């Protein structure tokens, strides 16, 4: 269980033998997963199976009980060093990993533009002017150049999620995490968000997406990971969708497709 992680050269992010319990319930049971640079990993599976927790462990929003989390060959968990050191390393890790949430989590008291510039000025210490320029560029990329001064409440769900994507992208992340980014959207708004994600994938962004959008999984996923009951039940290329080996995967796919 406590094997020393041997980070292979092409791994951007590596989880090794990760465990996580909430109270007495073990939600992640000894999971190991490697994300290579440029790879598009799609995590799917039944709710309560541990998909989101697994994703949140990747940027240590959720701290595992044991195992290792390695990013670019640096071990971020388990922590070593004092508390201050630990805090700044966490910040360092998270500033390189973008995350998009199911419920957008835009800051309601800030405009779309300010939502994007906050971390640029605060974490990257950019000047307000260059932060603004960068944010404008990112918002334009997600098609919101004419909504920059709107507050989140004045935007549709799809627009809000695109602002959230721009917010994460502005930090120039090496990895993007998507936690069910379309689950809170009206059906007609899902397309615009998936479109932005597919464009990102085409541009070569490394990403891990938890999603129920099996069409997206088929089009974009290089590796499909079926998570159920706190373990990776099955993992592989697109054949996981077309020709699942495990009964559980088969049953799940039958139910959703």
């Amino acid at each position: 269980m406590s094997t020393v992680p041997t980070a292979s050269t092409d791994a951007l992010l590596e989880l090794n033998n990760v465990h996580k319990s909430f109270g007495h319930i073990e939600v992640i049971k000894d999971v190991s997963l490697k994300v290579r640079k440029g790879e598009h990993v799609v995590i799917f599976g039944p709710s309560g199976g541990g998909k989101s927790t697994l994703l949140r462990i990747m940027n240590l929003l959720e701290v595992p009980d044991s195992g290792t989390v390695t990013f670019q060959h640096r071990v971020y968990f388990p922590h070593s060093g004092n508390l201050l050191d630990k805090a700044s390393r966490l910040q360092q890790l998270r500033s390189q990993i973008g995350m998009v949430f199911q419920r957008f989590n835009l800051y309601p008291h800030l405009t779309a533009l300010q939502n994007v510039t906050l971390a640029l000025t605060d974490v990257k210490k950019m000047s307000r002017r260059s932060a603004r320029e960068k944010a404008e560029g990112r918002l334009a990329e997600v098609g919101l150049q004419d909504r920059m001064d709107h507050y989140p409440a004045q935007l549709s769900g799809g627009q809000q999620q695109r602002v959230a994507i721009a917010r994460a992208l502005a930090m120039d992340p090496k990895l993007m995490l998507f936690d069910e980014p379309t689950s809170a959207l009206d059906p007609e708004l899902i397309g615009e968000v998936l479109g932005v994600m597919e464009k990102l994938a085409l541009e070569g962004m490394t990403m891990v997406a938890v999603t129920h959008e099996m069409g997206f999984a088929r089009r974009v996923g290089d590796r499909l990971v079926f998570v159920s009951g706190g373990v990776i039940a099955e993992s592989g290329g697109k054949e996981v969708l077309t020709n699942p080996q495990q009964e559980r995967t088969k049953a799940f796919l039958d139910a959703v497709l």
Partner: protein
Amino acid sequence: MRVDWNPTNYQFAWEVVGQYRFWLLEGVILTLKIALVSMAFAMVFGLVVALLRMSPIWPVRTLASIYISVFRAIPPLVFILWMYYGVTLVTGLNIEAFWSGVICLSLQYAAWLAEIYRSGLQAIDKGQREAALSTGLSRTRAFAKVIWPQAWRIIIPPIANNFVGIIKDSSLVGVIGLNELMRQSQIATSLTFRPFELYTAAMVIYIVLTLAIARMASILEQRAARSLRVQTRRVPQNAPSIRSAA
């Protein structure tokens, strides 16, 4: 049949209010001084207590929660007398009446304010903090730039209520010889035997002060609302508001 509304044929002498206007004004100034200083301390200390109350470390949390329960339970008049006469006697510290009063009001209101801060901070979705952390903000910066601006807007009205409360409770520090508005009216009454006129004047002044605070609070609230267009979840109105004096 005519109802006599003034059965004693009392002869009003409102001019005593005019005669003692500077006397009363002095009282108002001290009242405001006590209230403002106590409120400032209570707001800072209350926030500290609120943050301790939400600490992940349980002994810290418990201590903060004991503090809140104890200081909300003591009647302010008892506390003021205990502090000024009792504590000084036991410790030999010579605490001025002004500071005794301020300490008592600050400590008590910090307890009330702590619960207001807590309800405001807890009303903010935890996804807000996670979003800020996920972009690399430190916990402190996430609080300052994301959580606090949203919570502040929600807690302005109950905080203003507490400011009104502190002004009213400041009338109690007269008992330790501070010549605030209440005590000034009392002294003027003993000199003129005009309790009705002078206490009416005092009441009117307290009302004016309260209305002024309410007005300031609504201006603050509007300003905060301008930068926060969306309606955040309302705080449940179990937050303490105005309490009667002792």
